[in-house]
């Protein structure tokens, strides 16, 4: 079974802090994704990566950056957390190729106070 894990289920940070959300997959997937899930808005893509050190902006990249130094790990970075970044963050991964099922992690619920 594909396993996508996220470093924390719940996280509370203060405004202005630098926040790292980590995602690890164990199936040698080429693609990895970071989504943000908010009530009434569904899932919105923040960034994705299709190879080590390669990244592409999603629909809402502002205020976020990412890092992928190893194939299995994809980090989402909030350089200076703000209250409007309070949300559920979902990581996903998939094999390379045009159409591949995305496998999701359990999510990290981030609260910025």
């Amino acid at each position, binding site marked *: 079974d594909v396993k996508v894990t996220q470093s924390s289920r719940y996280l509370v940070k203060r405004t202005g802090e630098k926040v790292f959300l980590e995602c690890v997959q164990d199936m040698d997937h080429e693609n990895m994704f970071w989504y943000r899930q908010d009530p009434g808005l*569904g*899932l919105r893509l923040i960034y994705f990566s299709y190879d080590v050190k390669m990244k592409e902006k999603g629909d809402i990249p502002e205020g976020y950056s990412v890092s992928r130094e190893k194939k299995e790990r994809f980090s989402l970075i909030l350089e200076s957390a703000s209250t409007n970044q309070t949300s559920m963050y979902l990581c996903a991964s998939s094999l390379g190729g045009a159409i591949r099922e995305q496998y999701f992690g359990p999510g990290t619920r981030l609260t910025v106070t």
Partner: protein
Amino acid sequence: AQTVTQSQPEMSVQEAETVTLSCTYDTSENNYYLFWYKQPPSRQMILVIRQEAYKQQNATENRFSVNFQKAAKSFSLKISDSQLGDTAMYFCAFMKPRLTGANSKLTFGKGITLSVRP
């Protein structure tokens, strides 16, 4: 840009009955893929079913089936013999395949919360 609309925020169904979740989308593409994902309470999101736009036959996975109407840009999910474990949030999603390179992006609807009553 593609949009996916799930107009019903919540639905409820009696156990063992059938329920249909609606989804419409807007695209100018001819070749694309559609998905339904399920997110149970406090659990990970999983793929329920997928449909290729070039296939006329509706996809089926056990108790889950879709009604794909390409001209109407409609993609509804039918759950037969509803079970308590079907209680979850369901997301409709659209993907336009890229010719080369990176995996194509999913565009999600806002989701619908389905409750199955015992």
